[in-house]
């Protein structure tokens, strides 16, 4: 089955090349006769002092041409917004001498600091596990490798994994919304991805996947940058690059405020 698909793709490439005149943008899509063009409403989110979260709109079009094979399955769209990857430690409290303390810990590596998966229908209906896992379509298909050996037995590891997902979902940093991608027409689609107030800063990728009948037909990728700006960025930069100067400024500011209050509210 695999080889036949590859050969049919080759044939399409040949046909497409012969036909000529197709834009380079569409070349890869043309092999399967469907292509995907997607974009985001803003490629930069600026965090200012009044930032309380925002949303970005991801929209696009499924382009078909004469070569499109008519198939009964509907088109599926998945939009995956991924933040910079970090190592995350999940800890579990246990009772120790009568009090509740952190006892077991498991560190997962390369965990996206933010992950929003928007799909046109539940991911498990869209494609086989291998496809979903490769592209992180759905929280249940997110691979979480452990960073280093720990005392947690393998049978218990699933609990830590589930807890990580549960807590990330609760804090709004992970989300899976099936049915959130809406089709405006046969080929036009759109979804709105909320970015919560506590969204981590960094370079994000917005990946859009077009699937049909369990096969990935086309994909598109955009860069999204979430950055502090102005005063917030400067403060963070100062605190990390020139921490001694930052500390001194904080102290002087505090002494000045205290002195000012002492002078203003002077009672004698």
């Amino acid at each position, binding site marked *: 089955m695999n080889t036949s698909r590859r050969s049919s793709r080759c044939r399409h490439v040949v046909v497409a090349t012969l036909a000529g005149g197709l834009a380079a943008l569409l070349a890869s899509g043309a092999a399967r006769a469907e292509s995907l063009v997607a974009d985001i409403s803003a490629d930069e989110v600026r965090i*200012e*002092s*009044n*930032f*309380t979260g925002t949303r970005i709109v991801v929209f696009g079009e499924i382009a078909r041409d004469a070569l499109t094979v008519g198939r009964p399955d509907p088109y599926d769209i998945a939009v995956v917004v991924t933040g*910079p990857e*970090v*190592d*995350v*430690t*999940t*800890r*579990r*409290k*246990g009772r120790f001498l*009568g*009090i*509740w*303390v*952190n006892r077991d810990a498991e560190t997962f590596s390369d965990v996206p*600091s933010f992950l929003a998966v928007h799909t046109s229908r539940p991911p498990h209906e869209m494609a086989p596990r291998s496809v979903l896992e490769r592209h992180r379509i759905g929280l249940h298909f997110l691979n979480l490798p452990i*960073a280093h050996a720990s005392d947690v037995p393998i049978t218990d590891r699933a609990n830590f994994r589930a*807890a*990580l997902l*549960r*807590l*990330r979902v609760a804090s709004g940093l992970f989300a899976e919304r099936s049915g959130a991608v809406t089709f405006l027409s046969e080929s036009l689609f759109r979804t709105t991805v909320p970015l919560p*107030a*506590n969204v*981590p*800063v*960094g370079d994000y990728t917005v990946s859009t996947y077009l699937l049909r009948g369990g096969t990935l037909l086309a994909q598109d990728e955009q860069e999204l940058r979430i950055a*502090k700006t102005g*005063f*917030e*960025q400067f*403060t*963070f*930069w100062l*605190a*990390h690059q020139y*921490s*001694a100067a*930052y*500390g001194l400024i*904080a*102290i002087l*500011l*505090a*002494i000045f*405020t*205290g*002195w000012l*209050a*002492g*002078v203003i*509210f*002077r*009672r*004698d």
Partner: protein
Amino acid sequence: MQIYLPIAELPVNMFMVFGMGGAVGFLSGLFGIGGGFLLTPLLIFSGIPPAVSVATVTTQVVASSASGVVAYWRRKMIDFKLAWVLLVGGVIGSAVGVWLFGLLQKLGQLDLVISLSYVTFLSAIGGLMLFESLRAMARRRAGARVPSRQPGKHNWVHGLPLKMRFYRSRLYVSVIPIVGLGAIIGFLGTILGIGGGFMMVPALIYLLRVPTNIVIGTSLLQILFTMAAATFLHAVSTQSVDVVLALTLMIGGVIGAQFGARMGQKLRGDQLRLLLALLVLSVGVRFAVNLLVQPDELFSVAVSPLVEATR
């Protein structure tokens, strides 16, 4: 109105923070305490990361003690030499505290140590104060005069070597207990984000027999410097001092403190101490309950500190 905190990396309601600063400032003016032991848990319970809460409260304590120091300095009620010796200990204690703070954060036990220390210190000191104030009230009701301490009386502290003369306090004592006291309070202040005034004042009066009128100003000056050192060390080693949060707390705090101080003049000393004892105890009990009752959520997640991207 929401305001984004650049270091904590989350927005908070500015009026809520301002109100917390004001309420704690009111109590601090009322009881003559720094209020750090109330403010740090309040910030933690309202969702600000513990590391940022502790580090930022040290900055807020600098502001509140600075405003007190101005008032006492004007009335010349500060023993600078004594404050210096306390400070030497304070800096040592703070440095150890910051080192341990970073270590515990790495091990994931910072929250536990903060909670355990709160339970221990607040319960012990709250209990002692409650007992003392109730006894004073009972005695006053019985019509007896509360005996004042004789300044000439010595205890074991006065037998230690390395003696030094403090003219302003009319004292001749060993520097060992003074440096030690400074170190303990600097250490606790750094770990817990408290000024330690509620421990320093009784220790100076009962242990070293410093005249009461000198104690508060000297203690405030010492706290000012110790907490300034703690702010600096936190800024350098953990980078978790949030100036925006600190400034909002300070402004609320200094205003609240003025109203508190006025209210405090209308209450009797033993009544004030009883109220303060109950307040201290209840914060301690709140922490104890957290440790003893099984939490709803056993798991917690934390991003492992990695090489931070500069932006």
